[in-house]
Each structure stands twice: as C-alpha cells, then as structure tokens.
C-alpha cells in the first residue's frame, strides 16, 4: 500500500515556534496554536514560574516533548493523533499555570482542587476536540461514490508525475483501521483522565468511601433494571433496525419503479406503436439500452461537477444515434473537464459523427477519445464507401470546414482520412490546457 498523498485537512498541530522564540519557542508555538498573543502565554508561564517554580518545570517539559515547528511531515494519522494529545497536554499546562497564578496572588486553592482540575482540562480537551472539531470521521465522510472513475485512486499513479489529476481523486480518505484505533485510544485516554480527576478529588477530600457506596448502589440498581428490561430493550432495538432497513428497501423500490415507468415501460409502449418501422424500433431499443446502462452504472455526475469530455461525447453520440438511426459506439480512455476548446472539440466530433452516420452506409460509427498526456485525441470512424480526398463531394466541403476550421480556431487540429472502399476516419487533436 502506498500512503495516499494526504487527502486531509491540515490538522492544527501544536509545535514549538522556533522562529519567534525567546527561549525554546514553547510559548510562541502555544500562542500561535490557540491564536493569541505570545506575550499572554509568556506572562502566564512567568507567573506560574513564580508559583513555586512549577512554570519552569512545565516549560522544560514542553520544550522536550513538543516537536519543533518545521519538523518533517509525519504520516497523516500519526500527526493528527499526536496533535490532539499535544493540545490536551498544552491545555492542561495552561490550566495549571492559571490556577497556580491565582494561588500566587493569594487566592488560595489547595492541591485538592488544582490537580483534578488540570486532569479534567486535559481529558476534556481530548474528548471535546474530537467531537467538536470534526474529529469523528464517520460524521464528515460523504457517501463514497459507488463507482469511482477508473484510475480515480491516485495511489497507483503516485509514482507517475506525468499523470496530473485528470480525474477527480477520491474526495475523502476512507477511515483506516489505524485511524479508528487512534480515535478509540484517544477517547479512552480522555475518559480515563476525567475519571482519574474525579477519583483524585474524592480521595483527597476523603469522600471516596461515600462515593463508593453511592456508585455501588447505582450499579446494583442498573444491573437489576437491565436484567428486567433486557428482552424488551433488545426487541425495541431490533424492530427499530428492521423498520429502518424496510424503509430503505421500499424507498429503493419506489425509486426503481419510478425509473422503470419513465424509461423502459415508456419505450416498450413506443415500440409497440411503431412496430411497423424497424428502424425506429431499433433506434428506440438502442437509446433505451444506452440510457439504462448509464442508470445502472450511475455515472451521472452530480450537479456540482464540471461537465466531462467523455460524458459530452456520449450525449452527442446518443443524439446522432437517435437522429440518424445508426449505432455509434463511444470508447473513452481518460477524461477531462470540458472547457471552451473542449466544447468545440465535442461539437466537431459531433459533426464528424453526423457525417459518418449520413455517408457511412449504415455501418457502426466508432468513436474513440483519449485524454491522457498533453493532448486530447478523438477519432470518429465509419466503414462506409469512403472517398478520394481529391474529389471531395461538394456537399461535404462545408462539413469539412466545420470540422477542420473549427478545430484550427481553437488551437487544435482536424484531419480527415479517407480512401475509396476503406471508410472514413476523422482525427481531432486538441492540446490540453494544464490549468
């Protein structure tokens, strides 16, 4: 497995800011991270330092443990998980220094309060960051497309620098087991910290035994209740799940029924009406086939996507098929966003298809589009009678202009190859804008 090339939001990472440091860059890094003036953090540390030297110890620890600002990038999940923990530690330090500062000013907190509060701060930072900061991967992952375009995964192509993003890369990295494990361990660490804080507080105030009694009785009641209500709860959960599945199923069914009504049944009715015209029937069947295939493979782009070359050629092909009753087969390799020259290319290709359908003697029209390295190439080919370029029929001269001329106007090239008896092939080339 290759590491996928960082499809991630740039996770905020707590680092020492070496550039703006006074000593080790701890304060500057911390300040930059939470977005406040470094001077505030520095004052907090100094204040903490006066409170029995705690600030000094904390500073030194942070110096040792926080990575320097421009450390080399580590793998993504590692970085974010470390970042979270570092943030928690940082917040704990801040809480500590604030509390110690208060104490230094004579507002007396005993250690009974200080340490549990610091622990709670760290635990809360761990837990809340995950839930508030979008750290829960399940919540933010949009539904993965059922069928990514071939080659959509950039993994195998990472080695090849000449393959820029010609297809949309996977929008979001899937939740890796490693990522989930890190998430779970972070959550449990946070919970452990908060519980430890509670126990520390209770034991320090001497009320631990009382709390134990309370917890024990609550536990007993909980066990008793769950034993009594277990079957009922289980049934409830099950029926809820079932109902949900049922609803999804019936929704899907309704969607499919609606689609079949609009398309297949409609076409079948038309076929019956026009059964005396074989050409029309064939064209209807063909169009329905194309449409059903597209629906099955669900290649329909979502509204936000830019129009794509291959889809535009398919559309043009199906229109030509419908208008001229000749099968047009499109094979596309690679794809490209459709810019203005690309639209001209599709228009020229469409013209070539119409031409092939008209003069190709009813043979299948093969369209091949390749959008790979620096350019886009489209070939439109028929197996008709062909013609000698010298005596181009007059009625085809205009068409020739609208293909060759149009391509030239958009910085591309159009060529028509034909010979009597060998069919005709139109070759369109367009240099690719690398915007």
């Amino acid at each position: 497995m290759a590491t996928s090339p960082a499809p991630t939001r740039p996770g905020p990472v707590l680092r020492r800011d070496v550039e703006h440091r006074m000593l080790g860059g701890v304060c500057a890094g911390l300040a930059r991270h939470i977005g406040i003036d470094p001077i505030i953090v520095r004052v907090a540390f100094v204040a903490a330092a006066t409170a029995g030297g705690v600030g000094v110890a904390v500073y030194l620890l942070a110096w040792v443990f926080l990575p320097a600002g421009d450390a080399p990038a580590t793998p993504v999940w590692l970085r974010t998980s470390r970042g979270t923990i570092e943030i928690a530690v940082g917040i704990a330090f801040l809480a500590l220094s604030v509390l110690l500062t208060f104490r230094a000013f004579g507002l007396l907190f005993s250690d009974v309060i200080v340490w549990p509060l610091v622990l709670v701060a760290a635990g809360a930072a761990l837990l809340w960051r995950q839930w508030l900061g979008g750290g829960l991967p399940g919540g933010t992952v949009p539904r993965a497309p059922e069928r990514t375009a071939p080659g959509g995964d950039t993994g195998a192509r990472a080695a090849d620098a000449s393959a820029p993003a010609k297809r949309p890369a996977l929008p979001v990295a899937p939740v890796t087991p490693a990522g989930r494990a890190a998430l779970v361990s972070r959550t449990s660490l946070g919970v452990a910290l908060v519980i430890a804080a509670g126990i520390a507080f209770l034991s320090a105030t001497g009320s631990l035994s009382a709390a134990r009694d309370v917890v024990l009785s609550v536990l007993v009641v909980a066990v008793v209740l769950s034993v009594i209500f277990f079957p009922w709860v289980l049934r409830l959960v099950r029926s809820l799940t079932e109902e949900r599945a049922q609803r999804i199923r019936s929704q899907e069914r309704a969607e499919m029924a609606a689609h079949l009504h609009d398309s297949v049944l409609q076409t079948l009715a038309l076929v019956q009406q026009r059964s005396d015209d074989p050409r029309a029937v064939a064209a209807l069947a063909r169009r329905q086939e194309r449409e059903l295939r597209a629906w099955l493979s669900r290649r329909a782009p979502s509204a936000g996507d830019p129009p794509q070359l291959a889809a535009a050629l398919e559309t043009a092909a199906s229109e030509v098929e419908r208008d001229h009753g000749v099968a047009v087969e499109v094979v596309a390799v690679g794809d490209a966003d459709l810019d203005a020259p690309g639209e001209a290319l599709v228009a020229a290709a469409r013209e070539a298809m119409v031409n092939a359908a008209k003069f190709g003697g009813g043979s299948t029209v093969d369209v091949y589009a390749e959008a790979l390295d620096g350019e886009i190439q489209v070939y439109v080919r028929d197996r008709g009678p062909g013609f000698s370029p010298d005596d181009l029929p007059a009625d085809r001269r205009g068409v020739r202009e609208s293909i060759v001329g149009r391509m030239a106007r958009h910085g591309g090239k159009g060529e028509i190859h034909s010979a009597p008896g060998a069919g005709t092939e139109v070759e369109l080339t367009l240099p690719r804008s690398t915007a």
Partner: protein
Amino acid sequence: MTGGPRVLIVDDHQLFRAGVRSELEGRVDIAGDAATVEDAVRDIARLAPDVVLLDVHMPDGGGVEVIRRAAAQGDPPRFLALSVSDAAEDVIAVIRAGARGYVTKSISGEELADAVRRVHEGDAVFSPKLAGFVLDAFAGAPAGAALAGGAGDHGTSDDPALDHLTPREREVLRHLARGYLYKEIALRLGISTKTVEAHVSAVLRKLQLSNRHELSRWAVERRLVE
C-alpha cells in the same frame, strides 16, 4: 459438420441461446448449450468442446465460476465471454479468470463466428470497449520508460514488465479501440497480421497476470457484487 471449432453455448436465457445458435449454425459446429453453471461444467467434461461461449451474468457465480470449475477438472476448453454488460469490472473479472476474449451481445453473427475461430486458434479477442479499458487500466505508466521506477506501488508483480504496455502494444490497442480489424491494423502499422495477434495475446497475458491496482480493483468489485 463444418470442420470448424465445436462450440458450447452457456447462457441462462433460453431466447438468447436459441438466437446465438441460429446465428452460428453453419459457421461453426454447435456441440450443445447449457443454461446453468452446473450444466455447463458437466457438459464441458462430457462434450469436450473447443470453445465455450460464456455468459458473464448467471445465477450461482456466473461465467467466472464456470471457468474456475472447468479449470479444476483439468484440460479446460478456451472461453470467449459474451455479455450484455460492458462494465469494466465484468469484463476484467472474466478475462482475469481466464477467458481469451470478450465480446458484447450486440455483435453480428459473422463477427461472432470469426471471434470463436480466433479464440480457438489461441488468439485473443478484444472488443473496442475492452481495448479502451485496458488502455485506461495501464494508463499513467509511460510505456517502457517507467519500468525501473514505476512499479513500486503494486509490488507483488514478479515481473515489472507485466505492469506496462510496450509502445507497440499500446498502438495496437488504440487501433482496436478505434474499431480497426486485425488485418487493417497490420496494414496501417506495416506489420503482419500474425504480429498484431501476438501483440494482442501479450496484452491478454499482462491483463491476466499483472497486479496493477486498477485491474485488481475492478476484479474485486465484481466479486463483491456476486
């Protein structure tokens, strides 16, 4: 008897079997037809056909399952996949299972008989669509040039050459995708038809053996659906 290859037709649609039979009658020998995976495996053992025309989508595992079980019982015939589907994962899965070619059901009787003969002779049969898939799957690896450095991602290939097409193979495939026949390609590239066939067979071998990520992904997608 036509002296041509003996063909077994495997498809779960009775109407379609009858259609193919009438198209092929007189062009090749029809050894029989089968409607299920079970029947197909049994008939392959019993009738020993030269070529099996295989539907991709059937209950109980489809064409891939027939190829797998026929291979398990030894001395399998050659398989030509014939399907209404032209989705990449269907095509690639059945080719990687061992089929020597793939054509869609819209093919004419004459072309089909020609494809059967070609598969019988040990050649590969690529529809324009399949040629397009292969070019797509092998895209992003500059032919030949990247042999040294490009194969790092999909490390299990024993032979990195399997993961790349030669410029000539690429050229032949592009012509296939453009709808040219073997002899037209030979004429255009100035090589013999035999050489064209050799190139296509080499591509088929790479298609079956390469560990290129796109190919395995397509194949896996298919298996999940089954």
